[in-house]
């Protein structure tokens, strides 16, 4: 992969003085900075299983749109809540199969395109509950052969999905329900800030970001901001993803819109409601894709095109946490 030098201007220097990184630590050696276009081209292939992470929060829409623009086909799209990102990717013809635990437009209603494709028999699917879905990722992330769960007595999902099995707990003799690991080819994980190596800080709803990153063969990290390694090291408890599981680090401000990035911009609820109308009509959906996905080069152009009124509507007032003292030892 082509390596880029770290950006000269740091966009988010933390207020207090930061500990110096020793000179012997060669920061360029593990620099993974690249554009999202390059990262998708290199790591996402036709037929891959993709996990675009984020439970309502931090959904990497920019990556979904880039995959559409690059014309990937026959993907297996895995997400607990496929959300609008997979509705759009399915509409664009990228997907052969979907793995999910809730196919709704959160708080609005149906995820119309995924639903229509399933009902028409054109999209294969594999279905779990939220807990089974995250248990699959947890098994994948931890390198375990399966994950046990207590039975729920509901039964029917277990009956229709052969990936659900039951085994006897060797200690008590009671039955537990198991699911196999999920190990996507590529996880795409959006974060607030990361250094050029891929150490990433996340706050707000952390969903399944960590599990997806550890479970996947390759990880594309998109970040609102690329920060100095010293910023990451100033608050190590906030580092959810370590550099060594990350393959590419892409600076993509506003990557998550119409989802959101806590503290950076709000969720565009108006668009989630609007999509309910757009996605009612296949023609309108294709027109929307033409304009907002194929009609722009990248996320920067998309964000600019949204216009100042939307930018203003989605802006958030700061609400800072109380600083913690790690101690100077």
């Amino acid at each position, binding site marked *: 992969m082509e390596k880029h030098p770290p950006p000269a201007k740091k966009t988010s220097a933390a207020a207090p003085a930061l500990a110096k990184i020793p000179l012997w630590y060669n920061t360029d050696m593990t620099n993974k900075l690249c554009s999202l276009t390059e990262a998708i081209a290199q790591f996402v292939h036709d037929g891959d299983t993709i996990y675009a992470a984020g439970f309502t929060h931090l959904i990497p829409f920019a990556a979904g749109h880039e995959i559409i623009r690059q014309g990937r086909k026959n993907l297996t799209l895995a997400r607990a809540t496929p959300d609008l990102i997979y509705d759009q990717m399915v509409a664009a013809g990228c997907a052969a199969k979907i793995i999910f635990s809730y196919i709704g437009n*959160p708080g609005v209603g149906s995820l119309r395109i995924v639903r229509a494709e399933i009902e028409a028999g054109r999209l294969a699917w594999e279905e779990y509950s*939220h807990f089974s879905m995250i248990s699959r990722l947890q098994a994948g992330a931890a390198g375990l052969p399966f994950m046990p769960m207590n039975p729920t007595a*509901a039964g029917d999902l277990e009956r229709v999905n052969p990936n659900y099995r039951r085994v006897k707990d060797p200690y008590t003799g009671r039955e537990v329900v198991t699911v196999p690991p999920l190990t996507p080819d590529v996880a795409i994980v959006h974060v607030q800030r990361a250094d050029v190596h891929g150490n990433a800080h996340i706050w707000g709803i952390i969903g399944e970001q960590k599990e997806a990153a550890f479970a996947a063969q390759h990880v594309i990290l998109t970040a609102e901001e690329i920060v100095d390694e010293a910023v990451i090291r100033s608050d190590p408890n906030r580092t959810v993803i370590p550099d060594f599981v990350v393959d590419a680090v892409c600076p993509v401000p506003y990557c998550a819109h119409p989802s959101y990035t806590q503290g950076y911009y709000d969720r565009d609820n108006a668009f989630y409601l609007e999509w309910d109308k757009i996605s009612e009509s296949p023609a309108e959906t294709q027109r929307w894709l033409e304009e907002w996905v194929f009609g722009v080069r990248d996320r920067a152009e998309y964000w600019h095109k949204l216009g100042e009124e939307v930018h203003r509507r989605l802006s958030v007032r700061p609400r800072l946490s109380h600083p913690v003292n790690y101690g100077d030892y």
Partner: protein
Amino acid sequence: MTYTASELMTVNAARLLRDGDRVFVGVGLPNLACNLAMRTHAPNLVMIYEAGVIGARPSRLPLSIGDPTLVSGACSVVGMYDIFSLYLQRGYVDVGFLGGAQIDRYGNINATVIGDYHQPKVRLPGSGGSMEIAAWANRCYIITPHQKRRFPAQVDFRTSAGFLGGCGEREASGVRGKGPQAVVTDLGILQPDETGELVLTALHPGATLEQAQANTGWPLRAVRQVQITEPPTAEELRILREELDPQGIYLKGS
């Protein structure tokens, strides 16, 4: 004072919550009911959202259960695996709200599919968190309009467990929660009898047993002394209309 069916159901659901309850909050009307309860009789309600937020204090009504307003000012935020395992499976959740297209005689819920699973006539959103919430929350509540198609004798698909086939089947299955404790409709309230069958225990002002029976897919029985619910108060309606859903996204209409 006039009110919509949605307002009526939300107010009655809110009144079922006890101060100090730890509630797994769902989208839509449950979200409103919990926020209403917290602003009235249950200020110490702990709102847990399946997105991983514990002790949320939202300053605006969240459209989704993953809204940023839930995080700012919350007690804690954990990952998805933790919320379902450490909190729900372990047994720290008092109340779960459930929804679905169909609820049957024994409180089993279908949120998955109408028709054959593999060749669905209507594909619904699916379980989300509800399969585990129904099993492991101490008690569950359901809010739904009272319509015959929503209350079949048996659901097409058991997404989440009520009392299964009734008569102790749920207890025998070993799941920890007590199951659905009330179904709040726009006509009244259904609750399980000792066999797990849902029976009418309360009617809203103006509603009749005959209406409820005509809109239920099994021969609906009523307890001997059916209660009449108190109509929504002016204060409850003010909070709903002015503070929680000023745009009427959930409460307008019907």
